[in-house]
Structures are given as C-alpha cells and as structure tokens.
C-alpha cells in the first residue's frame, strides 16, 4: 500500500514541478529553488513528517525533502545545543545526499569521457 501512496504523492510533487515549468514558465533552477523553500516551510509548520509517514519515499525522494531535512537538522541541534545549533545543524541530515552527489560526480568526471 505504501508503494501506491509513494507513487501518487511523489508523482504529484513532480506534477506541481511540471506545472511550474509549463504554466508559470519558470526555469528549472527557479522551480527547484522554490520547491526546496516550500519543503522547508512545510516542515517548519510540522506537516512534512506526517507526509513521510503516509507516503514514505513519495515524500523523501523529491527535492522538497531536501528543504525538510535541512530544517530538521537545524531544529534538532537547536533543541540540543541552543542557538548555535541553527548554524551547525543545517547540513546534519543532508550530508549523505550532498556528499554522495559530490563524490560520485567527481569520480564520474575522472572516469568518463563525455559524449558529444
């Protein structure tokens, strides 16, 4: 059942992105930035966690979860270490995604010759 909801919620977020491309005529970069900020705000209100419980990867795979994870890290360390946690905690959870993307992309650039 969680697969169905992952499909519907994840597809729905992508559909919103497509509407921002086609209807609002935003560039991909503007769309992604807007979605990340939206994810951060939704988590700030406290609605992203219920969405993850409900839709699983449908909520964690789209880029909105990046904003959610940034806020999560900041708030967790804010509660634990006080005000400095906002700065130190932001990349706490997203480290996996960013580090993996940097490392794999760099290795790919070393190993692969671009086509064309």
């Amino acid at each position, binding site marked *: 059942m969680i*697969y169905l909801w*992952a499909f*519907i919620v*994840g*597809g729905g977020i*992508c559909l919103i*992105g*497509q*509407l*921002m*491309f*086609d*209807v609002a*005529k935003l*560039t*991909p*970069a503007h*769309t*992604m*930035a807007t*979605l*990340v*900020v939206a*994810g*951060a705000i939704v988590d*700030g209100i*406290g609605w992203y966690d219920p969405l993850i419980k409900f839709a*699983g*990867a*449908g909520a*964690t*795979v*789209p*880029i909105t979860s990046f*904003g959610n994870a*940034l*806020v999560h*890290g*900041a*708030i*967790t360390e*804010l*509660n634990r270490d006080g*005000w400095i946690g*906002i*700065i130190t905690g*932001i*990349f706490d959870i997203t480290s*996996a*995604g*960013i580090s*993996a*993307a*940097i490392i*794999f*992309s760099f290795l790919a*650039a070393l*190993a692969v*010759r*671009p086509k064309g």
Partner: protein
Amino acid sequence: MDDAYSFKDHQEEGTIIATKSAGQNKYKKMSMSPKEYQNFAKTREPSRSILANCVRAFLIGGLICIVGQAISEVFVYGFHMSRTAAGSPTVAVLILISVILTCLGVYDKIAQWAGAGSAVPVTGFANSMCSAALEHRAEGLVLGVGANMFKLAGSVIVFGVVAAFFVGLVYLIFGIEGH
C-alpha cells in the same frame, strides 16, 4: 532538457534584436516590435501539450519514488535499520544510480521525455551535478569540475539553507520545541 524549456532565452533574445533594430537601423529586415516578435515566436514554439507533460511527469516521478521506496525497504528489512535511519543510504543509492545513468547518457534521454518527473526527484539533483562535472571536465579538475559542479545545484542548496536558517530562527525566537 534545456532545449525544451528555452522559452525565456528566446524572449530575451527577441528584445535584444528589437532594440538593436530600433537603435541602429542596421537590421532593417527585423521590423517587428517586441510584442509582435513575441507573438511570432509563440507560433514557432514546438507545441507540447501541458496535459501530456503533466501525465509524463507524474508517471516518471511516481516510478522513481517507487524505486526509492523499494530501496528503503531493503535497508529496513535487509539491514535492520529504522525507517528514518534508512533515509540517508536510500538517497545515496538513488544518487549513485542517477550518476551511472547520466554517464551512460540514459538519464538525459529520460529527462527529455519526462520533464519535471525526472528533475524534481533527488536523482535530478545528482544528474545536474554530474552532467555539469562531465561537461566541464575539459577545462581541468579544479577550474572545470570543481568550479562548475554546483552551477545548477548551487541555487537549490543556497535557497534551501537560507530558508532552513529562517525557519530555525522562527523556532528560536518563539521558543517552539519542535520535532
């Protein structure tokens, strides 16, 4: 994907041409006002039905999320992780898959068909970094790969971090004990 969404570029090009023709009389054949040019450009735009684009984005985006769900189930049941702990390795595996597909040239083909469906998931984030790294490889490792990797992904990180900072600030000021 850039090709499919280059409408903005066309618009800017149009205004530049129009002002040149108004200023110098050098381009006499281009006797259109910017408005006329925009209408002209609209007729020449390849027509992609918005509905078809949305269906494609929904299908591919949903499929990528199903793959993500399957990978996280492997971590939960195969490696006995909690659901939250399984999130990070799941994202890392998806990024690895995306980088491999980008190197093979497959991801760009999917992206052309799927539009936002392949751009919005975290795999699109990795694709933008990897393709920038590959594209600028010829300029060297430091100035090419290092300097250009975040060309597209950078805006996501910058706006994400700034937004998260302000949300954290609101929590701090109002003393909310969240999460």
